[in-house]
């Protein structure tokens, strides 16, 4: 490599710098430093004339390393680097010293101090710029395909939009049907749409009628749906993940099934329907709800006796009871996690699980759903009669340090939505909400509170201490403490507003994908504000309720945000990476795996030969591995130990 020819450019910043700092003596000082071949001062380096002067000097004096003493690198670093690359100098060969922010401004009353500090800082920068290495770029080919894990509202929205953009999308869902929690909700706030209609399907955004578009499932070549499937193994990195999906047998081919229902008639086995929380009965081959997607019958393996009756009668030969488990290998560029949440199970709390008339909000939603098991009729589960006094208890399993410390953020809106529809349909039913705080997170949710108050819903602030069944009154006695006073409420139906917890296999999935979870076991994002939807592995994104309880509007927002992120990263078909990454000196590496453990982005991996290896695409240039490495074998380019030591020496020398 040719000898360093350093050019130092000092900006006057129109007097901001030159009024305080004695540029003459600074220039004299700089000229004495070896390898400095050119020193120039200019009024405004950031203006066009200044930039032209910079270019001219680089050309005429064949400068290959530049020090700019001006304002903070945060302001014009990118512009200066571009000038360097335009002049054929590697853009990394630049060091900016902020003599304005760190010398001229703070010591404007003491020019000699400011000049001394500026001299020192510029000298340190010259020492550093000498040690900088040229940095190249690599391009890694990226697959134009995306794996979406989880077929709820978030997953389907993301998949649809990505298919629109021309990506091949694979949608993996662990259940036999798509739609997630959205299907169970009845109506959803804030627009009171039918929950089923909120679940988008194939080509349309939000269909108003599900059945109109069923054929489109079969016709869109860009989305491939795997139901009853689980992601078993993932390896690779952004642009090139290899995924193995375990597809459990569904026994019914949803592409052939027309949902005629002949099979259900002949099935000899009858059990209770968990989709409706036991409010209805079903066969072993069944359709949990008429609205499920894809519209197909599904077989419940646990209860099916494999008698083969259904197989015989199916007019379309859609049923194959001998279907075997399959493993499918996929090659994708990015992965989106939309595994959603599930309801917290309030077992033994407030009599849940002991008395059938203590139910959860999701169960109430099934009851209030006009196409649900009761046809929208409100009943007591124990005897099927209409209840007269309903008490809703908020914050069950959330905002409780012993169970889940976080606020589940949507349960208040759900409770108000249900209270309102009960009051609208049956004004004679007495509805009371026992709450800690009413927290309405959505933009339009305040109207529910106003309407509930207008319709006469009672609100009691307090904490429930005990729920007991009074056999004489045939009602529950709810003891609660409100503002230091003990109160007792009577009810014949108790609805628990349960909190939400991560999906059942979130932990397992986090292990497979090697990504981190928060303490509450939802997927963690790299930064809560600036990168809320990115996980610590580049190329794996998370959206919807998989990163914390969210309502439908927020879920859709996040899904669309993730789609634009994926489209940006993969859209060009290749990923460009600047090689200012961690590098391993194989002679020093002892294969201790400290880098592997300490890397927050899983970029460092120790190979079979016992030598660490950094995947450039995944490295985010933090240098944590370099600081942790006991053998000093792994180093961050341009922040290597010797480079940092050089600048430490330079800064401390007087």
């Amino acid at each position, binding site marked *: 490599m040719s000898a360093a020819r350093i050019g130092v450019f000092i900006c006057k910043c129109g007097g901001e710098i030159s009024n305080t700092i004695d540029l003459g003596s600074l220039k004299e000082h700089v000229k004495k430093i070896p390898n400095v071949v050119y020193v120039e001062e200019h009024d405004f380096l950031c203006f066009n004339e200044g930039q032209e002067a910079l270019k001219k000097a680089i050309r005429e004096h064949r400068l290959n390393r530049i020090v700019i003493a001006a304002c903070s690198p*945060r302001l014009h670093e990118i512009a200066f680097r571009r000038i360097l690359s335009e002049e054929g100098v590697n853009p990394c060969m630049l060091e900016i010293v902020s003599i304005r922010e760190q010398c001229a401004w*703070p010591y*404007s009353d003491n020019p000699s101090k*400011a000049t001394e500090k500026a001299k020192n800082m510029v000298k340190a920068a010259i020492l550093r710029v000498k040690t900088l290495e040229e940095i190249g770029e690599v391009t890694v080919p990226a697959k134009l395909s995306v794996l979406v894990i989880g077929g709820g509202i978030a997953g389907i929205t993301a998949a649809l939009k990505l298919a629109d953009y021309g990506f091949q999308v694979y949608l993996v869902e662990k259940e036999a049907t798509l739609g997630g929690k959205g299907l169970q909700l009845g109506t959803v706030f804030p627009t009171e749409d039918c929950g089923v209609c909120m679940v988008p399907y194939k080509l349309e955004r939000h269909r108003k009628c599900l059945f109109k578009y069923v054929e489109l499932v079969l016709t869109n070549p860009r989305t491939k749906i795997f139901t009853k499937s689980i992601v078993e193994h993932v390896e690779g990195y952004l642009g090139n993940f290899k995924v193995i999906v375990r597809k459990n047998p569904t026994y019914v081919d949803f592409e052939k099934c027309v949902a005629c229902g002949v099979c259900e008639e002949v099935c000899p086995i009858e059990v209770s329907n968990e989709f409706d929380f036991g409010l209805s009965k079903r066969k072993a081959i069944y359709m949990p709800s008429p609205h499920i997607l894809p519209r197909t019958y599904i077989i419940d393996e646990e209860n099916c006796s494999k008698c083969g009756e259904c197989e015989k009668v199916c007019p379309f030969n859609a049923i194959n009871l001998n279907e075997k488990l399959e493993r499918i290998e996929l090659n994708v560029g990015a992965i989106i996690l939309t595994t959603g949440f599930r309801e917290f199970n309030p077992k033994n709390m407030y009599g849940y699980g002991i008395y059938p008339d203590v139910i959860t909000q999701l169960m109430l939603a099934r009851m209030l759903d006009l196409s649900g098991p009761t046809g929208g009729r409100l009943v007591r589960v124990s005897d099927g009669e209409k209840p007269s006094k309903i008490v809703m208890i908020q914050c069950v399993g959330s905002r409780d340090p012993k169970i889940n410390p976080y606020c589940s953020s949507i349960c208040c809106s759900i409770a108000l939505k249900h209270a309102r529809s009960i009051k609208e349909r049956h004004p004679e039913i007495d509805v009371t909400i026992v709450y800690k705080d009413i927290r309405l997170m959505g933009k339009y949710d305040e109207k529910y509170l106003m309407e509930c108050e207008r319709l006469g819903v009672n609100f009691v602030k307090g904490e429930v201490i005990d729920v007991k069944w009074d056999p004489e009154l045939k009602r529950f006695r709810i003891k609660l403490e409100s503002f230091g006073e003990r109160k007792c409420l009577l009810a014949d139906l108790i609805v628990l507003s349960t909190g939400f917890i991560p999906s059942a296999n979130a932990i397992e999935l986090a292990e497979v994908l090697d990504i981190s979870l928060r303490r509450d076991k939802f997927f963690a994002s790299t*930064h*809560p504000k*600036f990168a809320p939807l990115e996980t610590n592995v580049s190329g794996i994104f998370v959206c919807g309720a998989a990163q914390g309880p969210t309502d439908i509007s927020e879920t859709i927002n996040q899904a669309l945000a993730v789609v634009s992120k994926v489209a940006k990263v993969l859209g060009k078909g290749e990923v460009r990476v600047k090689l200012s990454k961690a590098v391993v000196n194989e002679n020093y590496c002892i294969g201790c795996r400290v880098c592997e453990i300490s890397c927050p982005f899983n970029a460092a991996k120790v190979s079979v030969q016992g030598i660490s290896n950094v995947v450039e695409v995944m490295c985010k240039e*933090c240098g944590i591995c370099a600081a*942790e490495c006991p053998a000093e074998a792994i180093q961050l380019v341009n922040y290597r130990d010797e480079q940092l030591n050089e600048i430490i020496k330079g800064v401390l020398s007087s």
Partner: protein
Amino acid sequence: MKKFKPLILAFLCENSAYRAIDVASMRKVSYLESIRVIKVPCSGRISSTHILQAFSNGADGVIIFGCLKGGCNYVDGNLRAQLRVKKLKKILDIIGLGGERLEMHLVGFCEAGKILECMNNFYMKIREIGPNPLKSKGVFK
């Protein structure tokens, strides 16, 4: 006796503290000029060697600024740095330099006031403690 002016090295994370210093200087608040600043990509990049290197080059104190807890751009770089500092403080005590010559603070990128306050307090503390003992032992000129 001539008043002792400590030389202090500050490592600033470019995502938080370095911005905060910029904000401070935009308000034209003057801070002590004998605090020398080095920008690093993450406070997690600073290893024990760099801190020791600073002491052996004549620094009387080393102060490290990282992002706030949960706000690190690189997930947990700041917390790792904190652990490292905690360990190194003990080592500094053993070798006789004194663990109090090393400090680490977590600041947000707009907490200009906090960062200046930390620097000033540290400066005052080091002035009380006195110069780096390596200086008087003639380890370097």
